[in-house]
């Protein structure tokens, strides 16, 4: 148990105004984990991700990523952490006025010292990594939804991030593409040691890729279970988690 902690969340409350989604949550994501945030629809998974990535201020509590306090820390330190994180949005969120290659080069232009030619090569490489070799000069409107998602992943990987966040990576993908994306996630994690945080309720992916997780519950507004999803299935701590992990089989 001597793993180093990548993300440390303490006493975190998430919500909008006086509508609280989650009370006083504590959890840790270790370096090199594939960490799943799961739970029923509307329990606040996407909101949790928005807090982790700094898009939504928490109601209270702390988020510490690689020893930097993301809520109250110095803006410069926070920015450093952000440069080292990649995010894959539910819709891909590619900039529609730029080609795929330009999309991927954008963060590089901003935060790296590569020469333009190298950036172009790197963009091509990242696209090839996600199976989009040769699509450099396509615009987002010219590719399919699944391809957008993969291109979004290529952009998330542009700066060789330490942590990559995924919001529902398999939503809207066919089973094979979804499986391939899972493989890609595992491969990234294994070969680059990237810490990965995934919001999903796709059971197949949860068991295929996750090695740690939290289960958010809307009714109690707490973390109802945590740990390796496969272990949770073997020893479900309560009825809700069991039903979730078995697609609603009653115990």
């Amino acid at each position: 148990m001597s793993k180093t902690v990548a993300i440390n969340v303490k006493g975190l409350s998430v919500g909008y105004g006086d509508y609280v989604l989650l009370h006083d949550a504590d959890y840790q994501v270790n370096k090199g984990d594939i960490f799943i945030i799961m739970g029923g629809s509307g329990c606040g998974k996407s909101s949790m991700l928005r807090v982790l990535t700094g898009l939504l201020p928490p109601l209270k509590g702390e988020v510490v990523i690689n020893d930097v306090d993301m809520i109250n820390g110095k803006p410069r330190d926070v920015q450093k952490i952000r440069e080292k994180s990649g995010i894959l949005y539910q819709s891909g969120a590619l900039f529609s006025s730029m080609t795929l290659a330009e999309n991927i080069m954008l963060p590089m232009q901003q935060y790296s010292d590569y020469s333009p030619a190298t950036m172009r090569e790197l963009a091509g490489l990242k696209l090839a990594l996600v199976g989009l070799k040769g699509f450099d000069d396509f615009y987002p409107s010219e590719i399919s939804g699944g391809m957008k998602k993969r291109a979004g992943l290529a952009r998330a990987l542009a700066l060789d991030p330490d942590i990559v966040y995924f919001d529902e990576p398999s939503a809207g993908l066919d089973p094979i593409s979804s499986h391939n994306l899972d493989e890609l996630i595992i491969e990234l994690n294994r070969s680059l040691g990237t810490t990965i945080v995934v919001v999903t309720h796709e059971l197949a992916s949860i068991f295929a890729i996750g090695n740690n997780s939290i289960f958010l519950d809307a009714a109690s507004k707490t973390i109802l279970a945590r740990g390796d999803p496969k272990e949770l299935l073997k020893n479900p701590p309560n009825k809700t988690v069991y039903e979730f992990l078995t697609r609603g089989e009653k115990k």
Partner: protein
Amino acid sequence: MHTSQTNNPVEFFSKNGVIYITLSGDVLTYNVEKDLQKINEPAQAEVLKIVFMPDGLKAWDSSLILLVYEVVRIAKNKGIEVDLSKLPQNLQDLVNMAFEVDRKPEHKSSSIGGLLEIIGSVTIGLYRAVSGFLNFLGAITLGLGRFLSFRSIMRGTDFCAALEDCGPKALAIVSLISFLVGLILAFVGAVQLQTFGAQIYVASLVTVGMCRIMGAIMVGIIMAGRTGSAYAATIGTMQVNEELDALQTMGLSQIDFLVMPRLLALILAMPILTMLADFMGMVGGAFVGVFLMGLPYQEYWKYAFNAFTLNNFLVGIFHGFCFGIIIALCGCYSGLNCGRDADSVGVATTRSVVYAIVWMIVVTGIITVICQEVGI
């Protein structure tokens, strides 16, 4: 079709405080209101139990589920027992499913409270809007600072695309509208001036009117409608597509990236478009003067140029410049503050045009008063 069943597929009869609901034949697209009234009648207050008797039931659809569901709901409220056991199992399951609740919505803050609450929320809303806009202006100023010190991440291609859109592509519509406005101005003026026999002063009227203010106002209104709204819609859609989130988490400035190219393009284009509008308005006036009123061509232009003063012209151009800033800021601000659904993009677009026109009129008032004081 059965002919024997002349009456309703759903019948009610009561005996000893029990209501029997018999179902027979096909219960398809059946309207339930009347039956529900029967159960709701106060005369039925002493009912103890409701029993469904589906003996002759053949085909059924959602309307029957609705009937059973509503009956059960009303009965529950009145504390009456309902016997569903004779109904088909799948129908029972569906009704039970409709009653299952995992979680009630707990927030919906749209209750209209007392007067104090309304005053309070309006005040807070106003405060947020004003401070939001001031923040935006501050961010724009910083963005301009970065641009002037060559530290902006604005992309040249974005600027060129924006410039093309509000420059060359707007020429035709601006020319047409200002030509027509010049025409109208000349017509209206001509009727009055003719009564004094001073038709030739139509030339002066059109020149002064267009150059001083009408040219800029027409361009402002056209550009608010065609370019400001487009800015709001584009940026608002980026909000919906999470593109703004992506920019923010990449730590890229939305101001530099989205607002600056559009703002600079409009600041550059508006004065030029205003000049074009001035000219086209004068041509429109000449059209009326020369062809319809029969004024001599050279005479007309002589009077027109005599009335032209550099001051008027520059005041008009300055209006155009200010309107450019207003249109770009209103468009971008509405877009950046757009909600996350398709509806909000519509709201943002409308807002951008309304705000822009209101502010253009306010600014015109201010400039006019200042010019009056200074004596330009």
